[in-house]
């Protein structure tokens, strides 16, 4: 590395709704590596009500573990001098409830959805989408705006040169609601207008003086194209200026950081896009937090002109999470769906009370194995529901006229088809406490597979110690003298320390009768030799195979009604990567994926699955649990 490297050490924090995580990155020789990580409860709650307290505690832990002095009283020492302090400090945040927004468009499925994607992509929680065709009467919409008290509103609608009347109609409703923000009477509510440019003057007349109005380029200038960046940039800017400045302790934190604090999901989205771009692959990423679960996907698609296009989508399930929102997972998933993943009898009343106690004391962690299994059962349901929501929103632009040939009439493909195609997915990446901190990596693999049901051949990975947000904000550093080193540090640490490859999941799509063969594999696994095995429907088996430069190669031959990615009954040549949990063959079926209803049968079914992966202590198995 060149002599003029500006960054030798980096401190990055992520202030989550439950925990504040700090990482220390150091330049060692020619590369950047993660040195240590520390964490502490987030302190936006009384008696502290100051986010910097949690930051200082987490940094204090880093200091203690690394033996490097980072703090001078209550100040982070920058820049580094003689091994004391760090060169740069950056942070992300989702504490304070994250960024809560309402968005509005003229037609819900068109500009409404584009506005929603813009807000979600910027890292917001979308509380509601208002539109002229949302089925509500005007006074109901006004009442909704008043009651929700968002941090920010994104107003869109109309293509450039299109309807003015309908855009103004929505503007009138917002003006009539006189919305106040949850952050107090003195807070001037930011409203971003990103709609038809012909209506700007009317919107200005309606809203100026009543809110902090910003006007940016139309996010849907023509039906065939979205232009989300100006709206997303404005959201980031206003997030710092307005929302963060009103959260407890953030004014102080903002002064400490070298670059603006970024909403956590925005940072994770950046890293997901980086993975997809570097490897030219389709990725689904999920970040399950205490209050919310974010799902990201990047799909490699081909344009009409034959060029490759990366389609990025992010959704946030605002009330699906493992602590603050844990009770809502139970309410939405229902108790039987959670209990289907628990392989022992449990008193329902006791379980409900335990879940409530987790909600009211969100920072507690499981000590007993039974407690852990229950939390991981809830996590599966939170992930499953969040993915359903993602699939519904990660769709193509609606309202676009399509030229069809005779052949297309048989496909019935409409505008607005989902981009999610599990057979095309290359890698599924999990992040968030319940996945990253699972005591055995096999538990994370099982939660991801059970919730997302990957099809065909899919790599599974987790964020090792939950540091994607910090790496995301680091890769976004734009200060000219630091930019190059910061990006390099983010990529170095991501490749070497962040991503843990759990393995590859082979799942034939289809369903059949127990006892009937569904898959035959012939693989040459480096280190293990040749494998030739036949699987019957319902089988699960793990072949140990560590991650490395060599791949397992061979052929997968599905039976007549099963598809492994090449079509029903068609064989597929594969080159497969290994991982901590090796190659996981999951023949439990897809479309539909059925969990046995009979209690005894169900427990045996779960135990076969957990035994195969040696997921919990006290289990004897063929595979390593991959601690």
């Amino acid at each position, binding site marked *: 590395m060149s002599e003029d490297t500006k960054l030798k050490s980096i401190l990055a924090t992520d202030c989550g*709704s439950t925990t504040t995580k700090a990482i220390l990155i150091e330049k060692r020789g020619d590369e950047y590596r993660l040195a240590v990580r520390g964490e*502490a*409860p987030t*302190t*936006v*709650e*009384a*008696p*502290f*009500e100051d986010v910097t*307290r*949690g930051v200082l*505690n987490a940094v204090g832990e880093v200091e203690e*573990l690394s033996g490097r002095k980072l703090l001078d009283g209550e100040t982070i020492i920058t820049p580094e001098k003689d091994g004391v302090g760090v060169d740069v400090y950056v942070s992300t945040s989702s504490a*304070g*409830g994250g960024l809560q927004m309402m968005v509005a468009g003229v037609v819900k499925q068109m500009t409404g959805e584009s506005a929603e994607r813009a807000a979600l992509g910027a890292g917001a929680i979308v509380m509601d989408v208002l539109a002229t065709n949302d089925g509500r009467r*005007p*006074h109901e919409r*006004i009442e909704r705006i008043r009651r929700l008290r968002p941090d920010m509103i994104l107003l869109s609608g109309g293509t450039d040169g299109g309807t003015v*009347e*309908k855009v*103004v109609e929505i503007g*009138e409703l917002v*003006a*009539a609601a*006189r919305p*106040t923000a949850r952050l*107090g*009477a003195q807070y001037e509510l930011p409203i971003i207008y990103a709609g038809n440019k012909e209506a700007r003057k*009317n919107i200005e007349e309606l809203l100026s003086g009543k809110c902090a109005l910003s006007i940016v380029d139309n996010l849907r200038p023509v039906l065939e194209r979205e232009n989300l960046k100006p709206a997303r940039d404005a959201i980031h800017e206003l997030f710092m200026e307005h929302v963060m400045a009103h959260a407890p302790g953030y004014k102080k934190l903002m002064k400490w950081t070298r670059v603006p604090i970024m909403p956590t999901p925005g940072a994770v989205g950046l890293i997901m896009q980086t993975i997809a771009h570097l490897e030219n692959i389709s990725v689904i990423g999920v970040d399950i937090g205490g*209050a919310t679960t974010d799902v990201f996907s990047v799909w490699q698609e081909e344009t009409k002109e034959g060029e490759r296009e990366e389609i990025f989508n992010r959704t946030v399930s605002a009330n699906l999470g493992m602590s*603050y*929102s844990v*009770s*809502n997972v139970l*309410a939405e998933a229902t108790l039987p769906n959670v209990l289907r993943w628990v392989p022992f009898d449990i008193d329902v*009343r*006791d379980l*409900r*009370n*335990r*879940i*409530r*106690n987790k*909600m*009211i*004391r*969100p*920072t*507690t*962690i*499981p*000590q*007993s*194995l039974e*407690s*852990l299994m229950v939390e991981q059962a809830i996590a599966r349901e939170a992930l499953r529901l969040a993915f359903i929501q993602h699939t519904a929103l990660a769709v193509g632009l609606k309202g676009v006229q399509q030229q069809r040939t005779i052949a297309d009439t048989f496909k019935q493909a409409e505008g607005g088809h989902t981009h999610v195609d599990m057979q095309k997915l290359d890698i599924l990446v999990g992040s968030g406490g319940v996945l990253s*901190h699972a*005591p055995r990596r096999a538990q994370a693999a099982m939660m991801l597979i059970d919730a997302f049901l990957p099809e065909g051949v899919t790599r599974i990975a987790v964020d090792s110690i939950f540091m994607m947000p910090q790496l995301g904000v680091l890769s976004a550093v734009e200060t000219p003298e630091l930019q190059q080193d910061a990006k390099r540090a983010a990529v170095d640490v991501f490749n070497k320390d962040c991503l843990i490859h759990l393995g590859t999941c082979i799942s034939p799509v289809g369903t059949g009768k127990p006892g009937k063969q569904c898959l035959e594999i012939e693989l040459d696994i480096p280190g293990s030799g040749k494998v030739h095995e036949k699987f019957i429907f319902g089988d699960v088996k793990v072949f140990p195979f560590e991650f490395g430069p060599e791949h397992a190669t061979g052929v997968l031959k599905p039976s007549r009604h099963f598809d492994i990615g090449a079509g029903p009954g068609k064989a597929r040549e594969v080159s497969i990567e290994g991982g901590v949990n090796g190659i996981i063959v999951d023949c439990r079926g897809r479309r539909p994926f059925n969990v046995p209803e009979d209690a005894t049968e169900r427990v045996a079914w779960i135990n076969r699955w957990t035994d195969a992966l040696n997921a919990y*202590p006290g289990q004897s198995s063929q595979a390593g649990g991959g601690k």
Partner: protein
Amino acid sequence: MAHAYTPGLRVSEFTLLEKVRRLPLLGEVTVEVGDKVTHEQVVARTRLPGDVQSMNIAHRLSIEASDLPRYMLKEQGDEIEKGEVIAESKSFFGLFKTTCDSPIRGTIETLSTVTGQALLREPPIPVEVTAYVDGVVSAVHEEEGATIQTWGAFIQGIFGVGGETSGKLRVVVDGPGVGLTGDNIPDRAEGEILVGGARVTMEAIDQARKAGARGIIAGGFDDEDLKTLLGHDLGVAITGHENLGITLVLTEGFGEISMAERTFELLSENEGLLACINGATQIRAGVIRPEIVIPKLDQEKPAASGGESLSLGLREGSRVRIIREPNFGSLGHVTGLPPELVAMECETKVRVLRVKLDSGEEYPLPRANVEMIET
């Protein structure tokens, strides 16, 4: 000496409290700095804008939106009565008339020549904010509200439902470990706040409502009963706006759990005094916990507050409560804060503290699974 930070709930015998009382919108403050106020006294008032109804007059009269002003009988800002004709169009030399009647009493807020729409606003809704606690006005926030300062006992609960209320404290069980059932509820409890020990049952809440009680303070509650009380399964813990006819404050959590002895003693010592309670809970960042305030303005103020403050964090000797099973609810003292990670039964490696329970048992447990108790 090693130390760590952990959240904790306050239980104070006598402390200085400040309650900021704000209007939802700007309005008029009715008190001045230094005024002595009672808990029921109004300190600020405003008028919330009335509900809005929209009416597309251009569509109704079959006219162009830009022509709207020509057909209006009332102007923007005019007061209107329900049923009053506010716009009218004539055709065939005035032979046929089409009219628009106002569906509400109120004012015409806006008339749009772009959409042809009129927004009609109902009369404002008066809103008053009371002092909530007996005390002295320590600050006035112009057009927004006031801060009320008071001295007294203060207890933070862990979860509650129902909003602000007040009443005379009445302890109805013999000890902190005794559950609050229908049998403990007196026939008459008008205007009272009833104090139970351990878990309160749904039957007890129903009887307390019938007896006229305004609030219940108890150690625990069942989630199933919460569902019955609210009429739905609570998804996200944002409460306080329910209209249940009673406010419930839980001091410990869900399930069979005794009230902390110190909390029970403090409530018992103050039996017969006015308690101002609020069940509002918001378990999100910027958390709001339910609370019990027992104002004691006449008691002599201490020169300096003693005891261990929560903001100092955990240290050896700190008093803690275990907040996750096993031993949920047990009390003890911190005997060590080792820096190394320790594996739990489920194999999770975590930062721990050593705790010696009051029962004599001593073991390590995650730092995240205790809360500090102010002493």
